[in-house]
């Protein structure tokens, strides 16, 4: 993998012809993804289609078998689990990567303030709820002002009410920090709510690339929202009437 100070064509993420082969199977078979600063892309696809593999390649946690991958040096990931180090207090987790945590305490506190957890700075991670821990993970991801923020189903383990609050928080923070964002998710509504563009992965390639042309803040009840939703569900192989039998019955 090469790193570059000058992104070409204005892209901060430029991945072309990405292939990733596990054994005999090409999980990714020629995927192109380009992102400019401030772009928010959601990546949908049935389980096992390589969404997370693509995210891990862009994060630098995995290496593509083939293709070119250029990403910002400063990258952050929020995983499905918070992945906080249990032996470090909350604020020290936020500045986990800093050469000296103590010198960066102010930054940690500011980042925790942004996610509404300034009062929990000195708590131990075990004392946090799932939603709080995930907000700490978000603060940790944003504190270093990453050029690329990778979100790997970060809301999947949260309860429905916490998830709604997290959607708003992420939208706010992304609007303020303007990194390029790639969100991997199973949740079609979440993808439409948050992203500017939605990609659907199928059979190792990008099957659908659709721009979300709805003004923010978006309402789930808007006709265009519902239209996009059934289009995407259809592409994901979910028959809408089967997905909502309760609605059909009423």
């Amino acid at each position, binding site marked *: 993998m090469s790193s570059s100070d000058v992104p070409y064509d204005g892209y901060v993420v430029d991945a072309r012809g990405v292939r990733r082969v596990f054994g005999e199977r090409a999980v990714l078979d020629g995927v192109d993804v380009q992102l400019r600063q401030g772009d928010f892309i959601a990546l949908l696809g049935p389980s096992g289609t390589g969404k997370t593999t693509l995210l891990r390649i862009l*994060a*630098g*946690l995995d290496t593509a078998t083939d293709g070119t991958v250029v990403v910002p040096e400063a*990258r*952050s*990931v929020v*995983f499905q*689990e918070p*992945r906080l*180090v*249990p*032996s*470090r*207090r909350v604020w020290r987790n936020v500045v*986990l*990567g800093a050469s000296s945590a103590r010198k960066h305490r102010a930054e940690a506190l500011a980042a925790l303030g942004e996610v509404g957890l300034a009062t929990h700075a000195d708590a*131990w*991670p*075990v*004392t946090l709820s799932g939603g709080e821990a995930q907000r700490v993970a978000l603060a*940790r991801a944003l504190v*270093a002002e990453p050029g690329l923020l990778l979100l790997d189903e970060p809301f999947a383990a949260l309860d429905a009410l916490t998830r709604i609050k997290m959607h708003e928080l992420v939208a706010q923070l992304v609007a303020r920090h303007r990194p390029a964002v790639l969100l991997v998710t199973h949740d079609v509504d979440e993808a439409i709510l948050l992203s500017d563009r939605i990609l659907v992965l199928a059979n190792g390639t990008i099957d659908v690339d659709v721009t979300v042309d709805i003004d923010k803040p978006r309402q789930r009840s808007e006709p265009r929202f519902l239209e996009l939703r059934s289009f995407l569900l259809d592409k994901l192989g979910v028959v809408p009437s089967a997905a909502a039998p309760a609605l059909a019955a009423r």
Partner: protein
Amino acid sequence: MTTVELVGPRADTTAPGVPSQALSPALEDLSPTPSDRRSLAGLAVWRGRLLRFLVPVALIALWQVASSAGWVSPRTLPSPSTVIDAFAELIRNGDLQRALPVSLRRAFTGLAIGATLGLSIGLWAGLWKLGEELFDAPLQILRAVPFIAIQPLLVAWFGIYEQPKITLIAAATVFPVYLNTYHGVRGVDAKLIEAGQIFGLSGRRLSFRVILPTALPQIFTGLRYALGTSLLALVLAEQVNARDGIGSILLVANLNQRPDIIIAGVIVYAVFGVLIDVVMRIVEKVALPWRVSVQL
């Protein structure tokens, strides 16, 4: 209240001809009864504490009664009061004061050597592939040897003074520390390590910030286990040619047929064991504050 409202409409839906029994399953009343409401919880806690205290006291009392009544011969099992007299005797003639530091020094020297070795090799094998390849196989083989079996060898190699005793204790303690350190380090969640790497940690910093602190609870388990084992090894080591220490008190008492002194010596070993456990618990509480809130 809600239940009452629900029963009504449900009963109404009973189709004609269908026995109502089919729609009303056997019910059980789980509402709190007056005796549930009376707080028995506090009482149960106190009963627990009282019994924990009373049962050992009752056993000692029974022991004393059995001795006083002549049910057991004092040559087989001397009475508690005789054992207390034996303690007084050991302290009066200074035997105990001389023996304690000698035995403790042996145990701690052996333990310090064993634990240091176990910790260093465990960290090396846990953190570096090369260390694992070099040390894990031989240590797993050696671990299968019961350390008690090597005592005659140690006497043959190192003679009868301090060296074989300390070596035996070190040999007995190196394995629990090694195994728990190695597995503790290896067992650190790969996802946590990955998160550390994403945020720029690698090498020494990754080890000190993520891997070692997370492995610490298991390393402590190994240390605690090793402390117990060191005591076992101490007792064994002092049984052979001990000129001083608690073991020699036991040997001399055995030659002189003084079961009261033997029991006193055994109690000293037991007190060591309890103290070790208490100290380790305190050390763990202090060293692992982030676990306290879940452990309490």
